[in-house]
């Protein structure tokens, strides 16, 4: 069973890293969103520094959702999902491994580049570190919640928009606590630890529960 999980992770990793795999799409989209913000808001450095964490979090949320609609769709289209359902790995674990690989290839790069992009928003070192930290804690929840949406829309062509409509309301609590944790250092008044621990709780809860929801959706949709 662990061999099957390892094989699946390695395959997802390879596909994402190959040309056209889409691992860099999220990071590029992240860069685009963060770069156009100062043009829209004007060159007020104090304003940018104050709302920088919120901008980074919104950009990360949208970028994280960008590639998620294809999480199961590619496998459904080329027949791999039929074989995976009967693989020597329970479907719930299959979902978890695919999400882990997706997080490692799509969300983790966002975390890594977020301090760099935050510099464009005139943010200081400490808020930059806190944003990165809150993204590490919060993005697993986004990936797992997105997986439920991806599983529900797996058989729909162009289901990406529907997936966003399904998933974004569920992702709003993550966004609220993520931004409040990230703004703690830039004088928001809120403490850092409380919203950060809430983020961790969201992620842990999503990792524990979402595979069951997504696997149930996949089984049902495939009928």
């Amino acid at each position, binding site marked *: 069973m662990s061999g*099957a999980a390892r*094989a*699946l992770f390695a395959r997802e990793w390879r596909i994402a890293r*190959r040309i056209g795999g889409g691992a860099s799409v999220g990071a590029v989209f992240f860069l685009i969103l963060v770069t156009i913000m100062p043009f829209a808001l004007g060159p007020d450095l104090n304003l940018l520094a104050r709302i920088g964490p919120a901008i980074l979090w919104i950009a990360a949320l949208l970028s994280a959702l960008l590639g998620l609609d294809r999480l199961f769709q590619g496998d459904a*289209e*080329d027949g791999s999902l039929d074989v995976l*359902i009967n693989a020597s790995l329970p479907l719930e674990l299959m979902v978890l491994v695919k999400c882990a690989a997706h997080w490692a290839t799509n969300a983790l790069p966002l975390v890594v580049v977020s301090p760099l992009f935050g510099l464009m928003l005139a943010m200081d070192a400490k808020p930059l570190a806190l944003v990165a930290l809150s993204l590490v804690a919060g993005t697993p929840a986004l990936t797992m919640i997105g997986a439920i949406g991806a599983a529900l829309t797996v058989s729909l062509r162009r289901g990406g928009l529907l997936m966003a409509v399904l998933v974004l309301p569920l992702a709003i609590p993550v966004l609220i606590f993520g931004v409040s944790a990230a703004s703690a250092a830039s004088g928001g008044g809120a403490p850092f630890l409380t919203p950060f621990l809430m983020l961790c709780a969201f992620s842990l809860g999503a990792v524990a529960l979402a595979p069951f929801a997504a696997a149930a959706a996949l089984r049902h949709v495939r*009928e």
Partner: protein
Amino acid sequence: MRLRAKDIAIERGGRSILSGLSFEARAGAALILVGPNGAGKSTLLRAIAGFLPLAAGALALEGGAAEMSIGEQAHYLGHADALKGALTAGENLAFWAGALGGDSSPGVARAALGRLGLAHVADFPVRALSAGQKRRVALARLLVAPRPIWLLDEPTTALDVAAQSLLLAILRERLATGGLIIAATHAPLGLDGAETLALGAGGRVAA
């Protein structure tokens, strides 16, 4: 090993596809599903693999692993080849070997490709292969992980004559070692001693 279906019925979207179907498939003999387009051959294979629920009746496997479903003991080869275009043929097979509980070392994948006459394309990305070559890579998946039941949906699609005879040799060998094969096909496979289950239009058993 014996797969027995008793009075099974399958519905899709509220429409009856198959009803009152009984058959028996034995290890060592292939069961060939024949019938016109839309007769329910693929639907039956998908139901045996566990993708579709039975509306009535029961499927029972004698002599299999009790704690595993029929699907988990079966290779399912559908219309789609279940290959990733971005990965090489060898990588695709090594992955399926690992995921299906086989030996995922590259040598096994290479040997399976060699069996289907594709050793020279093991390092090519699958998207660069022809339809027939992709089908052969998909067939090689049957060889990289041991599973007692093979459910084949039109296995000869896009295969040339040479590849069809390779497939036939593999199927014969599999049957000789006690495999259970259920295949839906239009072209006769040429397997000796194969039993035929004819499905008629509208899902009635024709003969």
